[in-house]
């Protein structure tokens, strides 16, 4: 039994080795890279992407894709900020209700989940390919965000709300990292130890065989897209809290980094193969790459080029390994 299991662990180990190598190289080149301060900087930068990438992993594992996460992130954050600042006002009933921080987070959660659920519905009930459905949602949600914010940032959200993006739990661990860690932990448990996780791998591995085995494939898919939307909303809360501002341009192109993390992490785009921990590794590699190159003084535009090649390299190595 050992050899086959170790093979998958080995694949992740190679990525881990690559990560360590990068950290080593950058630490040698720049003294300020190897500080604890920098460690947390990297971790905080990586948190939002990791958060949405966990959702993306689940979606891709079922053989789908979610291009709308960036826009859903923005809309959720904007809703949270908007309700937090302005409360709920119904002039007709002469009613005004303030919204608490918790309330705004719950609202964001519902918005994200709702949009994700809508994606799932389009994909299962109307048989719209995931790429198309989520591409449409990307545009729809972005438009809605611009409408909701009126094109301007919503700021002044208060220190309680901002704590979720800027605070440090017990003074030692940044809130973003905590939130992200909890999400990763739950995702790992769900995928490895629950029936739902098993079903996700089954649907992605061979949808027809899964269906014939009695699985409700549609339900699995809808749930997975809903979760992706929900996690995008969490990302939205963190981003909004971090800069104390909900921006209509928040989350633009976030889906790309998310897909990159998933792919570098070894998850197959055709579904059925991959892991959340792999994705976390992928997100870390991207994060360290970004931060490291910046600290060494590489032009941000060149960073993009390098990142692109890293993605190609990672997937090419993966494909070559699978050939045997």
């Amino acid at each position, binding site marked *: 039994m050992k050899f*086959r299991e170790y093979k998958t662990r080995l694949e992740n180990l190679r990525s881990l080795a690559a990560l360590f190598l990068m950290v080593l190289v950058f630490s040698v080149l720049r003294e300020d890279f190897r500080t604890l301060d920098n460690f947390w900087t990297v971790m905080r930068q990586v948190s939002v992407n990791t958060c949405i990438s966990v959702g993306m992993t689940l979606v891709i594992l079922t053989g789908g894709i979610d291009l709308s996460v960036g826009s859903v992130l923005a809309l959720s954050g904007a809703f949270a900020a908007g309700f937090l600042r302005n409360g709920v006002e119904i002039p007709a009933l002469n009613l005004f209700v303030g919204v608490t921080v918790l309330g705004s987070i719950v609202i964001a959660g519902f918005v994200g989940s709702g949009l994700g659920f809508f994606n799932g519905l389009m994909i299962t009930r109307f048989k719209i390919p995931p790429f198309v459905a989520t591409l449409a949602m990307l545009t729809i949600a972005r438009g809605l965000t611009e409408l909701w914010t009126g094109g301007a940032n919503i700021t002044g959200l208060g220190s309680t709300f901002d704590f979720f993006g800027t605070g440090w739990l017990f003074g030692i661990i940044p809130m973003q990292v905590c939130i992200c860690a909890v999400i990763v932990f739950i995702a790992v448990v769900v995928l490895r130890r629950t029936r*739902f996780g*098993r079903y996700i791998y089954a649907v992605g*591995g061979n949808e027809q065989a899964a269906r*014939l*085995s*009695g699985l409700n494939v549609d339900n699995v898919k809808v749930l997975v897209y809903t979760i992706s939307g929900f996690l995008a909303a969490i990302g939205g809360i963190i981003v909004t809290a971090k800069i104390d501002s909900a921006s209509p341009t928040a989350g633009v192109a976030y889906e790309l980094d998310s897909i990159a993390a998933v792919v570098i992490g070894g998850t197959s785009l055709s579904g059925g193969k991959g892991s959340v921990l792999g994705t976390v590794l992928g997100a870390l590699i991207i994060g360290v790459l970004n931060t490291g190159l910046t600290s060494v003084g590489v032009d941000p535009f060149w960073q993009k080029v390098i990142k692109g090649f890293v993605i190609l390299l990672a997937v090419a190595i993966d494909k070559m390994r699978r050939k045997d």
Partner: protein
Amino acid sequence: MMRDGKVVSTEAITAVCYDDVVRMMVGRDIKKFFVKTRGTRTEDVFRVRDICLANPERPGDYLVDNVSFSVRKGEVLGLFGLMGAGRTELLETIFGLHPRRSSGSIYLHERRLQIDSPGGAIRSGIALVPEDRNLEGLIMEMSVRASISLASIAQTQRWGFLDSRLEKRLASDYISRLRIKVASDRQKVEHLSGGNQQKVVIAKWLATKPQVMLLDEPTRGIDVNAKNEIYKLISDLAAAGLAIVMVSSELPEILAISDRLIVLSEGRQTGEFEPSSACEEMILKAALPKSS
């Protein structure tokens, strides 16, 4: 010639004939046709009536046209027909794969079943071993252990969490019972031979504790040795009381294993035969399309 990982003999091609090759693969002389012990008469346990499946591409045309049959407890009902006769479609319809395009009634122990999905069929006690194990029977990247429990996960889970001990026990149980050759139950299914893969599929379905088993070409693409093992398995299952419906396009095979045989042609039932008394010509005639 290799068997079970070892080279068992080396011969010049001109020196061997088909029977020799078969013998070397199996390791013992086998009768050309498997001989099944015929069961004694028992009561009807599974009955389908007027099953129809509409053709989605041609309105008014039916892929399955008013097929009815019944199966007794412990009986193997053979379903013979050429490609395109509607055999797979019939099984799929019974299994709940086409709820919107189909009609008809299904009875188990005289109780009418409402089946609108494979899940529903499984819950009612029906299992379907599909025609193409690669496309429909197995998830290649899954381990043997996970594959065997896939259709009956309710048994190996608690509050949504999988119980790996139960899973492992279920897997080992079937691995030994069906003699599935694996290095470990964690091995991915894609690395198994065709015969062993088919056994995993059958194990998966046996784990759902069905009362009716629908088999669609269960020995397709399997070597002679494994075929025999599957025939014996089907025979044992029937002896244990399962009602079995088996589709095959190999006449010798279906004659050897069935207690009764019905023939499908162009979606319609064209004949019912007793294997011991039937003549192959009549069966083939019933299978040929009339429109030609």
